[in-house]
């Protein structure tokens, strides 16, 4: 019973993995924006990324 359940579960995992690889899924955090104005090509500064306020790590030990 447990083995059958695991086989079904494993098959689902493999199917999701196949779809994920084919469709190019990624773990990266992205923000999807719709209808970006075409004017950006002429005026890149008119677009402001939501990540522009990111707190930068100034690192080192």
């Amino acid at each position, binding site marked *: *019973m*447990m*083995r059958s359940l*695991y*086989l079904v*579960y*494993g098959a689902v*995992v*493999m199917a*999701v*993995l*196949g779809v*994920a*690889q*084919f*469709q*190019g*899924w*990624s*773990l*990266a*955090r*992205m*923000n*999807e*924006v*719709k*209808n*970006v*104005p*075409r004017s*950006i*090509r002429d005026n*890149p*500064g008119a*677009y402001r*990324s*939501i*990540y*522009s306020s*990111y707190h*930068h*790590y*100034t*690192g*080192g*030990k």
Partner: protein
Amino acid sequence: MSAGPTPPAKPQVKALNCPGCGAALTARSLGNAVTIVCDSCHSILDAKDPNLQILQRFKVATDEARPLIPLGTRGKIRGTDYEVIGFQRRTIHVDGLPYSWHEYVLFNPYKGFRYLTEYNGHWNDVSILKALPEVHRFGTPTVSYLGETYKHFQTAQAGTSFVLGEFPWQVRVSESAVVTDYVSPPRVLSSEQTGNEVTWSMGEYITGKDIWRAFRLSGSPPDAVGVYENQPSPMGAQTKAIWVAFAGFLLLVVVMMIGFDIIANNKQVFTGSYRYDSNQRGEASFVTDEFDLTGHTSNVEVKTTTDVNNRWIYLNYALISEDTGKAWDFGREVSYYHGYDSDGSWTEGGQNDSVAVPSVPAGRYYLRVEPEGDPGYGVTYYTITVKRDVPQYSLYGLALLALLIPAVLLTWRTLSFEHLRWAESDHPPIKWGNDE
């Protein structure tokens, strides 16, 4: 005149009555019993003696447990009808605490005697061995019987504390024997030593429900408490099967990885080298040339290669579709630090970074790039490379993790079960205190 031959005596039916109290006795084993116990006055009688000599009398507590299967009940064990003819309670003491179990004597006129034992709702179907097992005393003692190895579980002095019905041996209350159990679930081999006499028996675990069904008893059996010495692990065989299945899936993942590596385009669609001067005022953002993403919906890898050295650069990216106006907005920091301290040399971060933008449809695209850096850093050179349809190995890792979790959880449950089993033995997994 001759008197002639004396006619044989007429057979007479003789009622069995207890010589102690006169109560009627029921003999169920057709003369096979050696002792019979009077339920009224608790006298143990010699069943082989025509006068039923009293061998022992014992006192019974008013709250003495009665057999869960009443004497005289008939049931089918392994396809053979047996009748319950005797019952006894036996007790061992471990660390000063008494542990009692019950034994039922079963009888079939053609098959002889068989036994059932019950402890805390755990039952065993027991029969006497006809051959001697081979005992190995090196390390943890084991015994071999019919090609199966049994591990030593416990040795204890067991005393008989209550008896009822008929027994095929000279039973006495307070008699004791050294009982040693060796287990190989669902079986247990037990040796009982009294003086120089050793009797070996084999028990096989059986559920209370099966007992109730076999003897057609009303109600339900008492719940099994804890884990018994030879109780089969409910997950034991399944754990092995699941690890075998996991190995199969692992192989499939490797095949899938090779397959996707072969069919993936992994095609470079854009590259550009840039310079960022953090001291320079003014708008730093810019857009790249357009590039085409072809094929089915797939990922886009954006790789940033820099010359940062004990500094950082942050790049706000937007991958923008020329056709639909949809954008994937993300930021990447590339930082690389290194130095030397009392622990030796150290490094942190790296000069390169890559990220996969998920599920991007085919079309014409460009990147908007907005670099940031600490004022005073000066000039940083960096290269942006865009690739289409790049295999993502982290997904394989996630899939393996997802496959591994149930197998590990099941193994953990199996080990916990075995831990509980052996915690009650002479060989507990962890010895607490300094008992020895």
